């Protein structure tokens, strides 16, 4: 019996990209459906009535919402290939902790960069870099966050890389200058097809953010 897997997503969403990377890592065939956030499909509203957000993974008709929960679901169902979370409970707790840290801090810090100007924006740039520096510290000298193998925590963070060009251009600062180790790590991840094929094109992300700025009136 073939699995039916559908992903409701938004091309530029760093949260949606996490699911794309996980599906690619596991070699799972699926149908990708692009959602228009200003005109959400009946399917999306039915499958995620609580938050009405993407990404939503629909597996044999049953929806799973929230990107990190989806990635863990994928890891548990398709468990014979490319394990994403480590098997040791303490290491798993650490991976979840840092993924939670990224969710709590990075998106909002990044958003402040493109929704502010002048001094406020400079403060936003600083805050964003501080968060990245903490993560860079956690990476240390390891090739990937949990060691030798690409996994859950790398997936949680790498998708933000597609937004770096937009943050840097609009914030007028260089992430590589401040966090060179993190950029090396990102380039290492991008050598994986599952990552390079899943991340949105950074120019398209930039154009999207510029459009959002106009719409929100934050130019």
């Amino acid at each position, binding site marked *: 019996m073939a699995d039916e897997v559908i992903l409701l997503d938004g091309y530029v969403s760093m949260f949606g990209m996490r699911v794309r990377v996980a599906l690619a890592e596991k070699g799972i065939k699926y149908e990708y459906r692009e959602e228009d956030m200003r005109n959400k499909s009946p399917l999306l509203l039915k499958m995620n009535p*609580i938050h009405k957000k993407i990404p939503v993974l629909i*597996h044999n008709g*049953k929806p*799973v*919402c*929230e990107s990190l*929960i*989806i990635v*863990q*679901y994928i890891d*548990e*169902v398709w468990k014979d290939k490319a394990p994403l979370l480590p098997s040791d*409970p*303490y290491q*798993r*707790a650490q991976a*979840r*902790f840092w993924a*939670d*840290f990224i969710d709590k801090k990075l998106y909002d810090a990044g958003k402040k960069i493109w929704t502010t100007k002048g001094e406020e924006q400079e403060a936003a740039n600083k805050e964003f870099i501080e968060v990245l520096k*903490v993560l860079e510290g956690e990476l240390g000298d390891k090739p990937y966050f949990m060691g030798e193998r690409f996994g859950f925590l790398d997936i949680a963070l790498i998708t933000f890389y597609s937004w770096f060009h937009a943050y840097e251009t609009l914030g007028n600062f260089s992430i590589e200058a401040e966090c060179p180790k993190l950029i090396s790590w990102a380039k290492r991840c991008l050598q994986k097809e599952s990552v390079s094929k899943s991340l949105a094109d950074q120019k398209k992300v930039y154009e999207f953010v510029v459009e959002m700025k106009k719409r929100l009136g934050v130019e």
Partner: protein
Amino acid sequence: MADEVVLLDFWPSLFGMRLRIALAEKGIKHEYKEEDLKNKSPLLLKSNPVHKKIPVLIHNGKPVSESLIALQYIDETWNDNAPLLPSDPYLRSQARFWAEFVDKKVADFGRKVCMTKGEEQEAAKNGLLDCIELLEGELGEKPYFGGETLGFVDVTLVPSYGWLSVYEKFGNFSIEAEHPVFIAWGKRCMQKKSVSKSLPDQQKLYDFVVQFMEKA
């Protein structure tokens, strides 16, 4: 080799209560250390340097922070009794979804009901009632969110039930009137020793908030 388990906690914290319940459910011997949040211990600052918050579970010297993450760690490490998460991946994803919903919304609305007034308080009261309604829908006819036994969502949510009469007093409204199913679930949980021993007396919680706000 005996396990050394330490819980850094603060008695009114509904996040800390979650871990107390889980440790009790699993029968895990541990040392409870009360933190003074205005004077955080070196151990807390060393164990949770990123957020500097409680609860922190320290197992054989290694710290785990964030209550839902620590709950999963407890469940995976002491996995031979009282499972909190189901074994089916889909049901696990649903349990994680609802626990996260509770974590993000219920605690925050509850805090705002106590700490705000006027329109902000009204919005928080309505938000809390909406959450409870959604949770009642998820519970359905089951005795617990976990089915026949206490599960991940029950452990995550029941401390908020433990704060309910405090929210009702500050918000001057009755949750019981509108949501008898939720109340029945809460009372059912309270019949379990692991829960009733882990939740402080509601009058003490109320007095704590009053004092806290007077000092603010």
